[in-house]
C-alpha cells in the first residue's frame, strides 16, 4: 500500500527545496519546449477555438496579427478557426500565462531555472495594465507595444541578465512578502526590488547609441506594477514541476483556468487534468462595470496559490485587502483557512503579522475534500468580451468539483494498493 503521508512529505520537500533563478530572456520559439510557428499557447486546461472565451479569442487574434500571420482581425479570426493553428495549454510546455495567457513564437520569454533540478519555466514579459493582450485586447496600440517589447525591452533585459548571470528570485519574493506583497494581485515591492537589482546591469550593458531605448525600458519597468508577476509565476511553476509525478502524493501541482474551464493536476496523478466549468467570480468591480460584464475565472496565475503564496499569503498583504473588497481580519481569516488544506508551512515565505509563520503551502486534495473547503484565488477578473480588460479583483473560491473528481481518480488509483 502506498504511503500517502510519506509521498506528500516528499512532494512538499521538493517544492520547498526548489530555488528559482531568473537566468535568461529568449524568444519563445528558441526556448519553450515544443514551440513551433503555428502553435498558440493559452492559459488553463486544453480548449478548442470553438470553446474559447472572449478574452482568449481576442488575444489569439492579437497574437496572429503580431506574428504577421494575419493583416487584420477578420483575417486572424478566419485563420484561428481554420485548423491551421494549433492550440495547447501553456502548462504542457513548462509555461504559465496570466489571464488569457496567450503565447506565440516571437514573444520574448522570461526563463527561470530551478537550481536544484535544472528544470526551466517560461512566461512572456508583462505588458502593464490597461489595454493589453492578456486581457484580450488586440488593437494597434497593443500590437505596437508587443513589437516594442520584442525589439527593445527583451534585448535590454537579455543583455542585463546575461551580464548578471542569474538573479535569485526566491530571495526577492521572501523580501517582498515582508514588504506587503502577496505576489499574485500585488507584486509592487518585488517589482521594485527587481528593478534595483537589474538597473545596474542594464547600465553596464548599455549601448551608448541606444541610450533612449534603455531609458524607455527602465521607465517601463518602473511604471509597471506587475513587472514581477511573470518572474513570480515562473518561479512557482518551476518549483512545482519538481514536485510532479510523485507516486502516491495528493498534492496539487497545477491550478489553472482558461475562462471556459477550471482545471487542476495532482502530483500522484501525473499530467491528467481534472476540470469543470470555470465559475464567474463574485468580486469587487471597478466603477462603471456590472455583474453582466464579468467573465469566467481565467489565467494560469492560480499557480501562485498552488505554490503557497498569493491568496495563501493574503494576511501578509494588508495593502491588497481594500482592492479586493475585504477587511484585514478577513485576510487573516482566509490565510488561516488555507492552513487547514495545505500540507505544511513555507520555510522561506513568512507572514509578519502571523509572527512570521510560514505561509500555508502544498494544497492537498484529500484535505480539501474532507473539509469541503476549497482554496481561493486572490485574482484579477477580466471582462467577458475580448479587449475590454480588467473589470475587478477579488477572492474567488476554486470550484469543489475539480477536487472531488481528482479525489475519485486518486482513490481509484491508490485504494488497496
Amino acid at each position: 500500500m502506498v504511503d500517502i503521508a510519506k509521498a506528500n512529505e516528499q512532494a512538499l520537500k521538493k517544492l520547498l527545496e526548489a530555488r528559482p533563478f531568473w537566468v535568461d530572456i529568449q524568444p519563445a520559439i528558441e526556448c519553450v519546449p515544443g514551440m513551433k510557428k503555428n502553435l498558440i499557447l493559452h492559459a488553463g486546461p486544453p480548449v478548442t477555438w470553438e470553446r474559447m472565451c472572449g478574452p482568449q479569442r481576442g488575444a489569439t487574434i492579437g497574437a496572429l496579427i503580431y506574428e504577421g500571420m494575419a493583416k487584420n482581425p477578420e483575417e486572424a479570426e478566419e485563420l484561428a478557426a481554420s485548423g491551421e493553428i494549433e492550440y495547447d495549454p501553456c502548462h504542457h510546455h513548462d509555461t504559465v500565462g496570466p489571464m488569457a495567457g496567450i503565447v506565440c513564437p516571437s514573444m520574448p520569454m522570461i526563463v527561470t531555472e530551478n537550481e536544484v533540478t535544472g528544470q526551466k519555466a517560461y512566461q512572456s514579459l508583462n505588458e502593464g495594465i490597461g489595454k493589453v493582450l492578456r486581457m484580450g485586447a488586440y488593437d494597434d496600440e497593443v500590437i505596437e507595444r508587443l513589437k516594442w517589447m520584442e525589439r527593445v525591452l527583451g534585448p535590454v533585459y537579455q543583455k542585463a541578465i546575461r551580464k548578471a548571470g542569474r538573479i535569485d528570485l526566491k530571495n526577492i519574493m521572501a523580501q517582498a512578502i515582508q514588504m506587503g506583497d502577496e505576489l499574485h494581485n500585488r507584486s509592487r515591492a518585488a517589482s521594485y526590488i527587481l528593478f534595483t537589482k537589474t538597473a545596474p546591469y542594464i547600465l553596464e550593458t548599455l549601448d551608448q547609441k541606444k541610450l533612449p531605448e534603455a531609458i524607455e525600458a527602465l521607465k517601463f519597468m518602473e511604471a509597471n506594477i506587475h513587472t514581477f508577476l511573470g518572474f513570480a509565476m515562473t518561479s512557482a511553476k518551476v518549483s512545482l514541476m519538481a514536485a510532479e509525478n510523485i507516486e502516491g502524493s495528493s498534492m496539487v501541482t497545477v491550478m489553472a483556468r482558461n475562462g471556459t474551464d477550471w482545471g487542476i493536476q495532482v502530483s500522484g496523478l501525473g499530467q491528467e487534468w481534472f476540470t469543470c466549468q470555470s465559475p464567474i467570480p463574485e468580486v469587487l468591480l471597478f466603477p462603471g462595470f456590472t455583474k453582466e460584464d464579468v467573465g469566467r475565472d481565467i489565467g494560469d496565475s492560480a499557480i501562485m496559490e498552488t505554490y503557497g503564496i498569493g491568496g495563501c499569503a493574503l494576511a501578509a498583504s494588508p495593502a491588497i485587502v481594500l482592492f479586493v473588497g475585504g477587511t484585514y481580519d478577513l485576510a487573516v481569516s482566509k490565510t488561516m483557512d488555507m492552513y487547514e488544506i495545505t500540507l505544511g508551512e513555507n520555510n522561506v515565505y513568512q507572514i509578519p503579522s502571523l509572527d512570521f509563520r510560514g505561509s500555508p503551502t502544498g494544497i492537498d486534495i484529500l484535505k480539501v475534500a474532507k473539509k469541503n473547503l476549497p482554496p481561493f484565488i486572490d485574482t484579477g477578473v477580466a471582462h467577458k468580451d475580448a479587449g475590454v480588460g480588467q473589470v475587478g479583483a477579488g477572492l474567488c473560491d476554486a470550484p469543489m468539483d475539480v477536487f472531488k473528481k481528482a479525489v475519485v481518480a486518486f482513490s481509484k488509483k491508490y485504494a488497496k494498493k
Partner: protein
Amino acid sequence: MPVKGLKKTGEYFDSVTLMLVARSLTEMEGVEEATVVMGTAENKQILAASGLLLDEFKDATDTDLLIAGKAPDEATAGSVIARAEELLIESKQKKASAGEHLPRSIEGAVDELSGANMVLISVAGRYAGDVAMEALEKGLHVLLFSDNVSIEKEKELKEFGREKGLLVMGPDCGTAIINGAPLCFANVVKQGKIGIVAASGTGLQEVSCIIGNQGEGISQAIGTGGRDVKKDIGGIMFLEGIKALAADGATEVIVLVSKPPSPEVLASVGETIKDISKPVVAILIGGDPKVMEAAGALAARDLERAGLIAVALARGEDPAGIEKALAARSEEIKKQASAEAGKMKEGQKYLRGLFSGGTLCDETQLMFKDSLGPVYSPAPIDPDFKLDDIWKSRENTVVDLGEDEFTVGRPHPMIDFLLRKKRIVEEAKDPEVAVILLDVVLGYGSNMAPGEELAGPIREAKKLAADSGRHLAVICSITGTHKDPQSRKKVEKELKEAGAIVMETNAAASELTVAIVKIRGGK
C-alpha cells in the same frame, strides 16, 4: 392554517444558529409555528410530525436548508421566510466581523490552540462519531454534545478512549465542568474538592449548584451521556470517570449521579468503588440504594441530599446532621403547605409539573410515587399512567418538555420557553389544578432571562384562577448559582414578584407540592 416554505440548496448553517433563528421567527407577531432546519431525514420526520413538511421539502437532502412558517394568513406565513433570510445573513455577518478566525476542523483547531487536550464536538449525529474518533486518535479527550450517534459507534469510541486513557463524555452529553470551566449547559460553580460523575445532565447541574450554593466547589464534573450506564455500553465511561476522580489529587469526595443503571453496570460500579478510599456518595434516581451501600457508598434519596452529604463530607462533618436540618425544614414546608391549601377552592387538588430538566422531572415523579402514588406522564414510572395525549394533562401530571416529541422544530425548553409559557396558562384554566410546578434551570447555554420570560405567564395564570375565585399555587425551583450569567438572586426576585413560591431545590419544591396535593386530597 396556511404553511409557507422555502428550500435553499447548498446553504449550510450549524444547528445552534438555526435554533436561534427559529426562536426569533416563532416570536414574530401572529406566527403559529416556524422552523429552519437542514433537510436531514431526522429533521424531515420532525417537520412531518408538525405538519410543516411541504411537498417541495420531501426530496430535500442534508445540504438543503428548509424554512417553513405557519400562520393564520398567507402573508404572515410568508413573512417568516423573508425574516429568516435576513436573520441568516446577519448570523453570517456577525461571524465574519468577529475578527477572530474560526477553525474549520479539529486539525485546524489544534493547530491554532496548541496544548489543547480536549475537544467539544457538536456536529450532525451521523458525522459526530467519526469526528470524535479523529479527536481520540489525536490524543484529545472528547465531549460529544451531539445526539443521534449510534450505540455501536458510542461503544467503539468509548472502548478506544478507554484503551488510550481518554475520556469520551457523551454522545448526548449536555453538561460538564472541567477545570472550573462550565461546558454546554452548566453552571458557574467555584473549583473545590468534590468530583462528580453523572449520566444525567440536569442531575449534574442540580447537584453541582447545591454544592456551589453551600459554598463548596467542584474539582471536575464529568458527564457521560445517559446511555453509558445501559447494558450495551456497560458503563465504560462512568467507571473511567470514577477512576479518574479517584486518582485526581484535587478530588476528596466523589458523587455519582445517574438514572437507574442496568444491573450489570450497577454491579461494576459497586466493584469499582469498593477499592476507592475516598468517600463516595451515590444518587441513582429510582435505583436500588442497597447495592451502593453494600459497596461502601452513601446512597442519597434525592439530588439535594446527595449534594448536601457531599458538602458535609468535604468539610469533615457528620452527614447525619443533614437529616435533622431537613426534618426542621419539612416542618416549615408543612406549615407553608397548609397555608397555601387553605386558600384554595373546592375541587382544586392536582399537580401539573412542567419541566425542562428530565432528571428533575423523574425526581418529582419518584417523590410523588413514594407518598401519594404514581402520576401521569408521557414517560411514567408506572406504565398504567402513560398520558394518552401528551398535550393534555389529567389528574396529577408531570411532563418533561425536553423530550423529543416536544422539541419538534424548536430549541430545548431550557432555551425556548414558548411551549411552557403557553402550557402554564392552559393548566391554570383547569379548575382541578392546585399547583403548577416549574423547574428553572440557569447557567451557560440556558435562556438568559428566565425570570422575565416566566413572570408574565405566572401572573396571567394566577389571575385566571383568581378571576374564577381560585387560588393557584405556582411553585418554582431554581437550579443555578449566584454567579450564573442569569443570577439566581435576580431570577428568584422576578419569580416571587410574579407571585410564585420559590424553593431552593427541586426536592424541596416537590416536597411542598406533595404536601399541598395531599391536603387537597389529590391522590
